[in-house]
């Protein structure tokens, strides 16, 4: 007991421990945030490399470099790694770094659990990636792993995949609990809910979504586990089950999941747009309500992924209407951002460039989402490259650009140095061009009838696929530049002032750059 008391007296006044133990044993939100961000970027490179394999195979018609089976594994692992390994951890990393700074808290509410949430991720992905080397190969049934392809007909490694998902789920749930406890309990005095920065609000709601749906994902993979190994018949009609049951449960998780991948970006973009417009955010409270509305609606739209499975007409109509409704609060957000920019005093540093591209391109992705939501039309779009175009437009210039924007915005605060603006602008423009070249033609391919998840295609799709692959290579190669920019910024560069962006608002800018290892040990007072 005395040992505990001892450590307590010293702990507030020294910096990080040295060596590897700093990272393995840390309870510091900044260290954990950094680890999340580094991990997420590593996963982005890994998942991106798989996308490069996909694009290389699709460069021309015919089978050239990989076998169809391996192609399916690439598609599956690419989707899983990007969703669970790249985007979600990146947002958790941002949350770890920024939430305590933004609300004036000394750390996250449950610091040890925070560390556990992080370390479970490498563990889960180690298991997931190890399936690539198992007999029969990695999961090859798409990131949506529909039964019975993933149960009766799945490779032996499916069981490992299931446990990897379980571990990821535990990690996400604990991370989300931590976020909620931090936000609800550790705000500085005077920071009422409606004074919280939007990034904090969006994360609060995201965390709620995570806690609500990750257990459902755990539930559905558990049913798979039982069907595969213990003879149950959840997804098998001969025992009275239904393969479509899988899809309902999966998408009850899956649709909120896509908002989990965008809401924190909404929050970050709100700060950035306001900072570089030098004007406070337009319509703060309606922004908050809009995010709440999106989150609630996200629970009742799941079957829009299943318009062709034979949902009864009434269900079909209900899910179509509910899905269309989501455009309303999302539109409110877009309109508010634009109005924030309107008559501001705009400048275009890298974070703002990414933010502006985010708004335009995410909206385009939203529009295609809306088209998909029209059930009869979805009969033509479903499972074609039109869908692939839709979700890459909301995910790449949405989630990923949102993360880039946030990273550039806060890098000075994290490292104490300014990043190289010229390189960052190059990164932006190359990404912007590459990304559009890669994903815009996919709309045309989908409309012309090219199904997704195929390693080879009919000749009329050849030209746009080639364009798309070229764009993808360009976009991919550009990301190495980002790595370079960040490393350069960490290692040196112009010293960053406490508040490098003259239009920025918020507690985090009252701290010196880099933010000291321990911050807000006594909470600041909010007027």
């Amino acid at each position, binding site marked *: 007991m005395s040992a505990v008391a001892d450590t307590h007296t010293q702990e507030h006044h020294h910096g990080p421990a040295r060596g590897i133990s700093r990272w393995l044993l840390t309870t510091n939100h900044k260290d954990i945030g950094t680890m999340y961000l580094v991990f997420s970027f590593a996963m982005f490179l890994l998942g991106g490399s798989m996308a490069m394999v996909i694009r290389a195979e699709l460069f021309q018609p015919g*089978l050239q470099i990989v076998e169809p089976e391996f192609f399916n594994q690439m598609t599956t692992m690419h989707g899983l790694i990007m969703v669970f390994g790249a985007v979600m951890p990146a947002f958790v990393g941002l949350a770890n770094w920024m939430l305590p700074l933004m609300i004036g808290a000394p750390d996250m509410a449950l610091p040890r659990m925070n560390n556990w949430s992080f370390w479970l991720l490498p563990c889960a992905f180690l298991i997931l990636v190890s399936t690539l080397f198992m007999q029969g190969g990695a999961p090859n049934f798409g990131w949506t792993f529909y039964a019975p392809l993933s149960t009766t007909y799945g490779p032996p490694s499916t069981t490992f995949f299931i446990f990897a998902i379980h571990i990821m789920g535990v990690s996400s749930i604990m991370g989300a609990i931590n976020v909620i406890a931090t936000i609800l309990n550790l705000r500085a005095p005077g920071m009422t809910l409606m004074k919280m920065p939007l990034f904090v609000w969006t994360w609060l709601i995201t965390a709620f979504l995570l806690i609500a749906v990750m257990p459902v994902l755990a539930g559905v993979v558990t049913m798979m586990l039982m069907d595969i190994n213990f003879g149950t018949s959840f997804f098998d009609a001969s025992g009275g089950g239904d393969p*479509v049951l899988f899809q309902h449960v999966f998408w009850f998780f899956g649709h909120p999941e896509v908002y989990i991948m965008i809401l924190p970006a909404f929050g970050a973009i709100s700060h950035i747009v306001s900072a570089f417009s030098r004007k406070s955010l*337009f319509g703060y409270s309606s922004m908050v309500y809009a995010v709440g509305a999106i989150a609630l609606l996200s629970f009742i739209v799941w079957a829009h992924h299943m318009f062709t499975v034979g949902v009864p007409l009434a269900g079909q109509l209900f899910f179509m209407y509910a899905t269309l409704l989501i455009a309303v609060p999302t539109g409110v957000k877009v309109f508010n951002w634009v109005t924030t920019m309107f008559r501001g005093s705009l*400048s275009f540093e890298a974070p703002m460039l990414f933010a502006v591209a985010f708004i335009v391109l995410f909206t385009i992705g939203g529009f295609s989402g809306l088209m998909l939501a029209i059930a*009869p*039309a979805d009969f033509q779009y479903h499972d074609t490259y039109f869908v692939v175009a839709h979700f890459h437009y909301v995910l790449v210039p949405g989630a990923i650009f949102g993360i880039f924007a946030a990273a550039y915005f806060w890098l000075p605060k994290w490292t104490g140095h300014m990043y190289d603006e010229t390189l960052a602008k190059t990164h932006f423009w190359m990404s912007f061009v590459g990304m559009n070249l890669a994903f815009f033609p996919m709309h045309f391919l989908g409309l012309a009838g090219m199904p997704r998840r195929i390693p080879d295609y009919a000749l009329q799709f*050849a030209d746009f696929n080639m364009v798309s692959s070229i764009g993808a290579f360009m976009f991919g190669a550009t990301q190495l530049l980002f790595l370079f920019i960040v490393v350069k910024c960490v290692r040196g560069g112009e010293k960053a002032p406490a508040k490098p962006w003259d239009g920025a608002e918020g507690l985090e800018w009252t701290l010196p750059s880099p933010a000291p290892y321990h911050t807000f040990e006594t909470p600041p007072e909010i007027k």
Partner: protein
Amino acid sequence: MRVRGKRLTPVVALLGLLSPAMAMADWTLNMSPGVTGTSNQIFSLHMTILWICVAIGVVVFGVMFWSILAHRKSQGHKPANFHENTVVEILWTIVPFAILVAMAIPATATLVEMYDTTDADLDIRVTGYQWKWQYEYVDQEFGYFSNLATPADQIRNRQNKGENYLLEVDNPLVIPVGQKVRFLLTSNDVIHSWWVPAFGVKKDAIPGFINEAWVKVEEPGTYRGQCTELCGKNHGFMPVVVEAVPQDEYDTWVADQKAAAEKERELTQKDWTMEELMARGEQTYQTTCASCHQPDGSGSPPAFPALKGSAIATGDVQGHLDIVVNGKSGTAMQAFGSQLSEVDLAAVVTFERNAWGNNTGDMVTPKQVLDFKNQQ
């Protein structure tokens, strides 16, 4: 106008870049209206939403680019100070809502029509298999399989690709024009999805359940589509081809089919020679079995065992017949007893027992297969 000009430049530049290629290649940009009432309705829905989105986009991005151009710090613009306005918030909640309602109305009407599968003139049962389609004419009591016809050499780039590369089958589905045809879709193994874009019909084929869809084609022609639900390794290689023909042509075709089935049955009684069986077996093997066990019998273990040197294919004939006729439940190995005729079964088993160095010398006759089936 300045605003629009700016927005369009990259697009124009891109088109300019591509235009030489465009002259010679296929740069289809849009959905095609198709040949049925449904597909035309879908097309017009698609165009309506598309234009609504474009219009909203022009307004929203217009305002945005206006700000980007006119309200820059570098041009000395000072920020205004407003940050709230309840009226506009309400306005931009209600207006999009109204637009959505306007979009939902025609969509609902179309959907209701698509779901009306009653009063069909003809029922066809469509069953998905890894990786082929089975078409059964429920009332006329005959049916057949429809396999990819593109040769492996084209896929492997050893031969030039044909015009309908990957979109050609050995036996297309044949339907009469002007009739309401109802499809009863199901699957034998995993979920597949049957899609013909020109019909506006896409429906999942789910094992153990039947989904319904319908089509009424007015224009004779050949219509192509593909399986659109990931169904395993050859998901990209299970096309759908439908031939819509005039009623009289259809009637003759049906009669021919029935006659051919009869002839097939008679072949069982014929005396077959080893050579005949091997030749026919090779053909059957390549269309039916090679997709899993590979053209050279090497398989792709562990998912699909090699037949070359396989214990079963070189062992006891009964065991070999058993796995081919009855399949193995819970694996991709289907029960081919109901898919292939006795002749084909005999031929393919004979072939497997004597090809690629499986020199058992055994010859399995159609009669043996018939006996084997009858024993069960």
